[in-house]
């Protein structure tokens, strides 16, 4: 794949006319996907895809295009040539772009992880053997992902990583299920077996008569996957330079000084310990860490090259959408082993689902409980809870009502496969919250 990328870039360089420059961004994957339902294989398959995005630059004008490339050198050269011609024609119509910023560097980086993945069909067989007798549903996704950057100034960056992600649920009946995940770079049968066993053990509680609660406020423990969902919705607008400058951030009240989070909340974009590339599509290298919220106060933003030029501030190599790719919420001091005791009486929320803003300027979000959400009394799990909707501000959940964060954190690999497999990740603890408002 790397050789193919290099050959494409060499050809692209040869397509340039005088006074033209380019930046190029390569994305590829060779992935296996096995979808399962009711302990059987629903859809098994493989996807091999690669794209090259070219930004053709002449002075302050530029035009971008993305082509699918296939690895056949002749076909790919032809497609690159046609795209460059198309972009060159477009340059006649576009005005100068005052906010175009790209990296003028010739630095090289390379990161290529080892590939120790077993055959996907064999993994599937082992998984379904272990899950025999269970209503097991989910997906195994595995393979290599590739990212590359190059420019006519001589810069080259390459990233490739082989990984797997088994995202599964074990159902008892209707919507009563336990969610599990196993992800990494090396498949270990015992690790998976342990995770499956944990899920199966939790099914026992789901067999009890479910409890339905009335709308109101309840003490809750938000397990790390639930907290990850909250951070995910905050990522839509919470951490980008553009959303702050245009007052569309969910943290608007923090920006105006009308609200703040608890001082135990410290959020960082932690690229150094991430699973993705440390470079972006405009060639800028990402710093190891970007502090976003420190001790409850807003301190920094993710800033794309375009926002940097527009607002006259330095870029930190963020994507165009300025969403975090490696969000890290600092741990607290509550041992995870003590959370049900400290919850005392309330709701143990294992997962949240379908979050959205219900009043963005006020920092209010809504969403549903999902999977094994449990009713706890006096530190003991009593019954599964029928799904409930919450509608609450972030300033209460992670502010005035926060009782503490867990000492241990989950390292959650992003299971997003829209268009291609994600390289994102999140480090997140659980959170004990005094009151959370449930509405339906």
């Amino acid at each position, binding site marked *: 794949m790397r050789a193919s990328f290099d050959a494409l870039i060499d050809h692209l360089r040869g397509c340039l006319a005088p006074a033209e420059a380019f930046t190029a961004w390569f994305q590829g994957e060779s992935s296996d*996907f096995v979808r399962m*339902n009711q302990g*059987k*294989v*629903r*859809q*098994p*398959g*493989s*996807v*091999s895809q690669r*794209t090259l995005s070219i930004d053709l630059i002449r002075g302050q004008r530029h*035009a971008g*295009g*993305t082509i*699918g490339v*296939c*690895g*056949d050198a002749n*076909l790919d050269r032809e*497609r690159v040539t046609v*795209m460059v011609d198309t972009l060159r024609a*477009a340059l006649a*119509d*576009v005005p100068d*772009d*005052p906010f*175009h910023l790209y990296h003028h560097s010739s630095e090289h980086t390379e990161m290529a992880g080892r590939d120790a993945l077993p055959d996907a*069909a064999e993994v*599937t*067989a082992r998984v*379904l053997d272990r899950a025999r007798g269970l209503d097991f*549903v*989910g997906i195994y996704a595995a393979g290599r992902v590739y990212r590359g950057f190059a420019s006519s100034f001589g810069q080259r960056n390459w990233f490739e990583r082989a990984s797997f992600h088994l995202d*599964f*649920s074990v*159902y008892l009946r*209707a*919507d009563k299920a336990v*969610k599990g995940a196993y992800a990494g770079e090396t498949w270990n049968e015992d690790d998976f077996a342990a995770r499956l066993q944990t899920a199966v053990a939790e099914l026992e509680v789901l067999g009890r008569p479910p409890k339905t609660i009335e709308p109101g406020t309840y003490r809750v423990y938000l397990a790390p996957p639930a907290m990850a969902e909250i951070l995910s919705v905050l990522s839509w607008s919470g951490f980008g330079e553009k959303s702050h400058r245009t*007052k569309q951030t969910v943290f*608007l*009240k923090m920006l105006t000084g009308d609200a703040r989070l608890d001082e135990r909340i410290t959020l960082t974009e932690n690229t150094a310990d991430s699973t993705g590339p440390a470079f972006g599509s405009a060639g800028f290298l990402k710093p190891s860490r970007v502090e976003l919220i420190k001790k409850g106060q807003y301190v920094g933003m993710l800033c794309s090259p*375009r926002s940097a030029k527009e607002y006259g501030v330095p870029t930190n190599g963020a994507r165009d959408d300025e969403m975090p790719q490696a969000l890290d919420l600092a741990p607290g001091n509550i041992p995870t082993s003590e959370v049900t005791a400290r919850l005392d009486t309330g709701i143990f929320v294992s997962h949240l689902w*379908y979050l*959205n803003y*219900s*009043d*963005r*300027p*006020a920092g209010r979000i809504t*969403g*549903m409980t*999902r999977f094994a959400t449990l009713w706890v009394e006096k530190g003991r799990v009593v019954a599964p809870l029928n799904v409930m*909707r919450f509608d609450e501000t972030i300033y209460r959940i992670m502010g005035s009502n926060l009782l503490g964060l867990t000492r241990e954190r989950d390292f959650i690999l992003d299971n997003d*496969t*829209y*268009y291609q497999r994600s390289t994102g990740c999140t480090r997140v603890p659980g959170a004990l919250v005094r009151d959370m408002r449930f*509405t*339906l």
Partner: protein
Amino acid sequence: MLETIAARFNSVLPKASDCAYCAARIVEERSERMSVRQDVLQPLAIDHDLGVMITVMHGGGYGYAATSDVSEAGLRAAVDRARTWAAKTASRALDYGSIALPHPRGAYRTPVAKHWAGMSLGDKIRLLSDYSRKLKVHPDIVDWEASLWRCEQTTLLVTNGGGRVTQELTFVAPRLSVTANRGAETQTRSLGMFDRSQQGGLEVLDRARLDHWCEVLPLEAMQLLTAPNCPTGPRDVVLMPDQMMLQIHESIGHPLELDRILGDERNYAGTSFVTLDMFGTYQYGSSLLDVTFDPSRGEQQASYAFDDDGVPAEKVHVIRAGVLERPLGSVFSQARAKMGGTANARAASWNRPPIDRMANLNVEPGTSTFAAMIAAVEKGIVMTTNCSWSIDDSRNKFQFGCEKGQLIENGQLGAVVKNASYRGVSATFWRSLSAVGDTATMEVLGTPFCGKGEPNQVVRVGHASPVCRFDGVDVFGGE
């Protein structure tokens, strides 16, 4: 190029005795995206994608392999990979032996009145620049943008039984958005997330009435800055088509997808409160509710002649006079559920396998005029343009928010309110439908961003709807 790839596929086809069913779905997509934000042209994007999905069914197994390598060697490798999957997983697969996919022949093309190429790139940029300038009417307008997205998707489905279907779909999607801010208050008015996306050419822009919205949206955004919050409590709610679209999508469309009912989506998009035994008898809504799966409406986003399994598509009722008739289920799901369905096996592109999706799912028009609908309300609210959506994994408990609300008091439209939101339960909400607008209130809308599936897929869906009224809904506002 597609013909060349089809010829290559035919040259690498295995013998029928070695492969009962083998198909190539070749997809070529060309798109252009342009946007003028705050009077500055944003980076232009001109994309070209091409690839092939190979599907194999043999010996009770199923497998797929998708590749952007459209050389003969690439196609041969993909066929081999798909066959290997079918062989290696047959003993653990759902029973594919009883399912027969068709070998159809046919063609479909989007009706286009004004061709995209009839306007130069420079003129399109100037048009968007004009719209952008019109949106900035006040210093409190802090962000504004006019966008245009065009996509041409050609699909050639070739099967080893002589099937051959060509479909050429063209989409045009305009969008306007304007955001106003004062202190800790920010309000946005927009044409949704490309809700005005339709099939067709430049005539889509005419139908979207962008000149009209350029004048209205910034004024409404300013008005919302000082508007009171939506009141709390039960009210009759009149939903405009750009909110009906979301209501149909989330609380009729997704719950009726047969693959959800069969459990395929339980690990990701979720299950459904609808069960197989409810079809034919369940009172989903009031007797005013007629919902159709309609792939025949030329300008609507998800119109086509064949789905991605090659099944001919036709208009059918899924809910008639409020009673649930049939699910949104493709050939695979129909066989598993042993009931009829629709031609709705759809894939995001060549790199994803088809699954049960909504296509065009429409509420049929009724007889109420908009004026009569408002006049009959003692205490109510009109809600316009979705901006917040959330629903449980059984597609039952929902909460939706709109950019703009306008109160109705004693049959008269009154004050504009901000953060207009409502919540309800799908299983009972549609039974409170008390008026369905006539054809004059109807709009043909949709979204290009319906997400579902493992691996994840985004597809275009269409929702045409009249204005509708629901009685006694739980409404509320912001903080």
